[in-house]
């Protein structure tokens, strides 16, 4: 492996009104390496990427790329110099073929007409070079997310890329798809390409990266070979303090049955689901993406209608199966996607918190500002929601604080059964620990907690018992004392 430096960042700073996003950042990326860039949300990773991509201009500092000074003015400019970014959200035209997408805007022509053969042939060469088992003619809409990412990479490769920047490419992928992506990255590396890789998942970084750079609050913490650090040290570098215990699990006495689900069915995704949830229990639900976990949660909550089966809460059957009925019976759902399902982003923290329990703040059927404020402040203090005041629009809060607002709205109606769907997705390490402590506090208060998660370490660390789902069915159940990642994965993949 060459030790030549491809990219040198020297004293780069960038400020926005009120925030110093990057403060005097300097580090080198070596040619042919996979260089991981990590840090909590707001650490400055995206700003740095946007500077490299020509979207932002740095206030100070210089960059050198393959020996030449680098100051891209637009993403296109960056691409011409050999830097391409693969974003988290895929930007392909679904209706067009892979080949058309790769050469979008630059069709291969002969005599002013599109030369389809040439177009497909050149696209196929790129696909094959990545050992992707794909045909260039098929439409992008038929591809999985990982395959779409490979098309994005091919597109970048077609510009003669030297440095590929990947912004959390694995976040939305299933375990199988992740394997495809990682294999592609290794192929790219073998071809001598340099990759800057951003991820929240430390396991991946240890598997893939050669070097790692940690940012915190816009400052550089350190850059070092991955072999010189361990997981614990990386986390403490990101958070800036030692996290003595990543999972603050406590043993709580398990009480009576709260929720009893019997033979619940709906379509292909919910087949004959039966389980019980007790007071004080944290019940984990594991499974691959698409295994029916979210769908099961929605049916229990009454957001979707069941086809068969019963849901009993404290022995009482839910007959109507509506959200309203579930709320009356103190079932809550903290959905997967806070921003699109959990919050009214244009509303204030206060209005979001009072949304479900709005009857509690009415006086003679009129919204009472004082009662609403008291309710909001109560939860802002109790859950330590970081916000300048209760009037702040919730969209300006960080992911962890937004999640606390969603939870507050359910605690305001004193919910007994709380279903969390991916409670820590997109939340940074420090805030995760706080969410975990809240889960424990709920269990201690005698509530029943269901925790759907794709992160096995978090399930193993937090749940008392784990149900594993596969293709809409429960494929196994295990107490977390006996569980290992391997056992759960085994149940999640086949049975």
């Amino acid at each position, binding site marked *: 492996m060459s030790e030549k430096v491809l990219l040198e960042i020297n004293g780069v700073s960038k400020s*926005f*009104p*009120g925030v110093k996003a990057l403060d005097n950042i300097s580090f080198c990326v070596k040619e042919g390496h996979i260089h991981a860039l990590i840090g909590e949300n707001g650490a400055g990773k995206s700003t740095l990427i946007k500077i490299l991509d020509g979207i932002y201009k740095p206030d100070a500092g210089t960059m050198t790329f393959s020996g030449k000074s680098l100051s891209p003015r637009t993403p296109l400019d960056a691409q011409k110099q050999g830097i391409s970014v693969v974003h988290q959200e895929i930007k392909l035209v679904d209706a067009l073929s892979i080949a058309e997408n790769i050469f979008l805007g630059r069709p291969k022509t002969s005599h002013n007409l599109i030369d389809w053969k040439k177009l497909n042939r050149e696209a196929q060469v790129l696909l094959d070079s990545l050992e992707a088992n794909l045909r260039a003619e098929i439409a992008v809409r038929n591809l999985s997310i990982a395959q779409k990412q490979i098309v994005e990479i091919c597109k970048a490769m077609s510009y003669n890329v030297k440095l590929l920047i990947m912004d959390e490419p694995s976040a939305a992928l299933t375990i199988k798809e992740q394997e495809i992506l990682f294999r592609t990255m290794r192929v790219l590396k073998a071809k001598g390409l340099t990759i800057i890789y951003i991820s929240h998942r430390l396991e991946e970084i240890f598997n893939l990266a050669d070097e790692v750079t940690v940012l915190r609050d816009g400052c550089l913490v350190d850059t070092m070979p991955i072999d010189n650090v361990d997981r614990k040290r990386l986390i403490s570098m990101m958070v800036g303090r030692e996290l003595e215990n990543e999972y603050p699990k406590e043993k709580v006495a398990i009480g009576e049955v709260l929720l009893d689900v019997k033979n619940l069915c709906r379509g292909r995704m919910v087949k004959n689901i039966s389980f019980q949830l007790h007071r004080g229990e944290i019940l984990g639900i594991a499974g691959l993406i698409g295994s029916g976990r979210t769908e099961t949660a929605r049916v229990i*909550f009454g*957001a979707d209608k069941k086809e068969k089966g019963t849901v009993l809460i404290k022995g009482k059957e839910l007959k109507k199966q509506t*959200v*309203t009925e*579930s*709320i009356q019976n103190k079932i809550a*759902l903290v*959905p997967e996607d806070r921003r*699109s*399902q*959990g*919050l*009214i*982003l*244009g*509303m204030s923290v206060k*209005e979001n918190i009072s*949304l*479900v329990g*709005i*009857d509690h703040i*009415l006086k003679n*059927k*009129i*919204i009472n500002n004082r009662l609403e404020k008291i309710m909001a402040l109560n939860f802002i203090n109790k859950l330590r929601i970081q916000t*300048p005041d209760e*009037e*702040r*629009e919730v*969209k*300006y809060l960080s992911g962890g604080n937004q999640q606390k607002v969603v939870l507050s*709205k359910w605690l305001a109606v004193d919910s007994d059964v709380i279903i969390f769907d991916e409670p820590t997705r997109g939340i940074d390490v420090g805030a995760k620990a706080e969410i975990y402590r809240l889960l424990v506090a709920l269990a201690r208060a005698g509530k029943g907690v269901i925790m759907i998660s794709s992160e096995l370490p978090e399930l193993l660390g937090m749940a008392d018992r784990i149900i594993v789902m596969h293709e809409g069915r429960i494929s196994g159940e295990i107490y977390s004392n006996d569980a290992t990642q391997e056992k759960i994965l085994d149940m999640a993949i086949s049975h």
Partner: protein
Amino acid sequence: MDRHQEQPQSRNFFTPILRWFDDYPIALAVIGLCVIMSLISSSFLSFNNIMNVLRQISMIAILAAGQFLVLVAGGIDISLGSIVGLAGIIFSMGMVKWGMAPIVAALLAVFIGGISGFFNGFQDAIVGIPAMIATLGTQGVARGLTYVLTNAYPISDLPESISFLGRGYLLSIPWPVIIMLIVFLIIGFISQKTKFGRFVYASGGNPEAAYLSGIKVKKVKITTYVIAGCLASLSGIILVSRLASGQPNAGIGWEFEAIIAVIIGGVSLAGGKGKIFGVLLGAILVGLLTNGMTLLNVSSYYQQIVKGLVLVFAVGLDVYQTRKQNKA
């Protein structure tokens, strides 16, 4: 970032005023137009002229108040102008042809407006037809019904007893202005102080999150259309008493002016955002614009062009701001 972050260190006398203008940037435009108008015409700032302008805008403003609720809930209603026409005809025919007492005919007209609104809401919320198309359909149906009922002839010989609504005064304030202010107070109260109002904002702001919070989004949305339909009827009734006849062509293009008023009043086309007071300012601005152009002898054809451009400009600004906020 947003304005709440740049807290001014020195809070002086002007701070609350400046913040108020921040919330209602359109107020500046209204004041600006008033200054220009009073320079052009010395009688502009007289009590009579101000009341005159307010009376001119009152019917569009009442329409806009209903449109406001529909837009905040995430819909849009372009059938309101036709409902004005239909309700006016029902009101006139009720009294003249069917021998109803004025109050009964008025209630019937409001009821028909409500039904039209329900039809809109049903198409949008239950069937899932895009609001613009659903209400375009209603626009055609309601206008067509108006022509069928009247054979396109106006209805005249209305009882004298209803003329106060359009032409009368209470303490030298025109009745339409009083009705408009009452409507705005009620809609303002509903939108800011009641559970239903909060649900309207939530349903428009994020229907999925609202649904998962136990809000019956479809019901809320339909209700906003029904209210808008009823208010359009009220507007139609006032127009009939002002003209002393039921015109089958009444209200054509009014939804257009109402939408202009609502959008320049700061209500977002994307739903979930806006205040009724902004809508009132928006309606006043549209009224001043019309009034000013008429004073300047601008032909009504050119006035259409100007209003069209104002609408496009206002929506463009709204789209631009939404995009900017989504980036933040």
